[in-house]
């Protein structure tokens, strides 16, 4: 049975407590995304896109943090998970 969004949030929260504790209490936005290779890139690099690309679930966390000089820095972390809730990739700034 596929995990619910609430299940995913809980699993990723445990990961964030370790990796990005400032985001652990932030409510994420969950979206389904399709990876792609733009047609022109396929043509220019002679690449082919897989016939079927599974959608992935991305949990995005956003927060504004304050640096020591007062600057406001937007922090975005995108955690990509598979259907079992396994974290495949986590990118941020």
């Amino acid at each position, binding site marked *: 049975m596929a995990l619910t969004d609430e299940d995913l949030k809980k699993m990723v929260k445990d990961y964030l407590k370790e990796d990005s504790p400032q985001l652990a209490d932030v409510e994420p936005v969950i979206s389904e995304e399709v990876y792609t290779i733009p047609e022109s890139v396929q043509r220019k690099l002679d690449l082919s896109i*897989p016939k079927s690309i599974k959608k992935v679930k991305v949990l995005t966390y956003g927060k504004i943090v304050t640096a020591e000089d007062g600057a406001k820095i937007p922090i975005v972390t995108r955690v990509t998970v598979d259907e079992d809730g396994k974290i495949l990739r986590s990118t941020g700034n």
Partner: protein
Amino acid sequence: MLFTHCTYLRIVNNTSSAMRITVDETDNFDWDRDGNSRPDINFQNVSIGAYQSKKEREELNALARSSWYRMHITLSNGNSINFRNDQYDARRPNEREYRLEGADASKYSAQQLSGNDLNTFIIRTVPIELMLIITNKDKLKNKYGQYEFDLIEAKIKEYMQALDRTGTSAKLVYIDDVISLSPYLLSPVNPDSPQDIKGLIDNLDEKLNPRFFLILGGHSIIPFHELDNPVYDPNNPDLDPDRTVFSDNPYASKDNDYWLPERAMGRFPDAASNEPSFFISVLEAATSRVKNAKKYSFGQTAIVWNKASQVVFDPIKNVEDLKDSPPIRTGDVRLEWLNKKGYLYFNLHGTEDENYPNWYGEDENKNYCVAFKPENIREADVENAVVCCEACYGANIVDRGVNNALSLKFLDRGAACFMGSTKIAFGQSTPPISCADILVQKFFERIKGGFTFGDAFLKAKEDFIGESIATNAGLGLPRALSAEDLKTLIEFVMFADPSSIMQEEE
């Protein structure tokens, strides 16, 4: 009695200019001392017409081990070249490009074919590469005033002459000027429409087929394209707040699909102020055309990204380790870490707020210290350095000046190249690296590989796509690109002469 070897020297003029030859740096001992069969006599003050050749007998003293001479060639177009050669080459087989010297050496090639007592040099003109320079006359005049515009235009012309001396012919096109466009049967375009300017560049590309493209001016002179941000979610605009991405990718793309450009393109930005000294200094630095820099490097990273940054830093690492921030803060950055370094790498935080031009570190407790600020390079010698920065907004120059954009500050201090992101840039904190980390790593690799800055930037994007797809597949993700991969492709810009090459020194 003098024993000699009979050899022949043949000069083939495969250029469209007549050449006049003089010869010196001969040693009397090496040649037919009493006769005329020596180049300082039978090639002295000799003229060879365009596409003509001349062959003379040269008697070599059999007791000499070599018979050197220097041949000076002045062409009817005013160019001058010379080369030094041992006529004993006639007795050994050679088929090689021979090194030319002199003021115009880069414009010509000399092919040497020797053996069987004949030594032949074929002099050819090196095919000229064309650079298309794009800017806006009215916007420059309105911003800086007529007198300052004249100064800027004079500096552009000096830069073009410097390019010409190194074998790159440049054409300056004002996108808003009828006279400038009339030779190409083109008309001025709406200077506020990036799409119209791209169309003009496409037309000029078709007519001129330039090797390099250079945009002169910042966003107020030639506007960036503002592309949709693939990561932006209109329903949740507080996540990645960048609704659009400032980009030069469409200008550099031959078609309307801008993800992977084909044109070797750079930009010399100007600053927000209507005082032209910064822009003039950038043009003057480019005019020097000498891009020698030490092979040593400096790198600084937020400590939480150290592991990923190490992978990016690896192609340029030399002696010094990456500096972690914290503990390194702006006040700890020493001038000697920066001075005379050919490669500078930064993986720090940045912000879009013009009042905070600094870059920031981050520790595990989520303290964001000021790690680097414009004052750190106020006295630094970063001349000719290649600077790559992964900080968010690291290359955001819109409405910015030298004191509130570190990218402009580096250029003001003479850096040859600044490559960075106009918006929020992504990466992973630990390997495998992704997004901005891959792009910067590939750019460094290509620069180190001897590519021009323009080609290195193109190839890095190409490399980025292959590497990102492979990395994603290795992580169990689809064998394709994510939204943040796509954003990376469009948000990085390069402020540099695209035809320049980094030449490393010890």
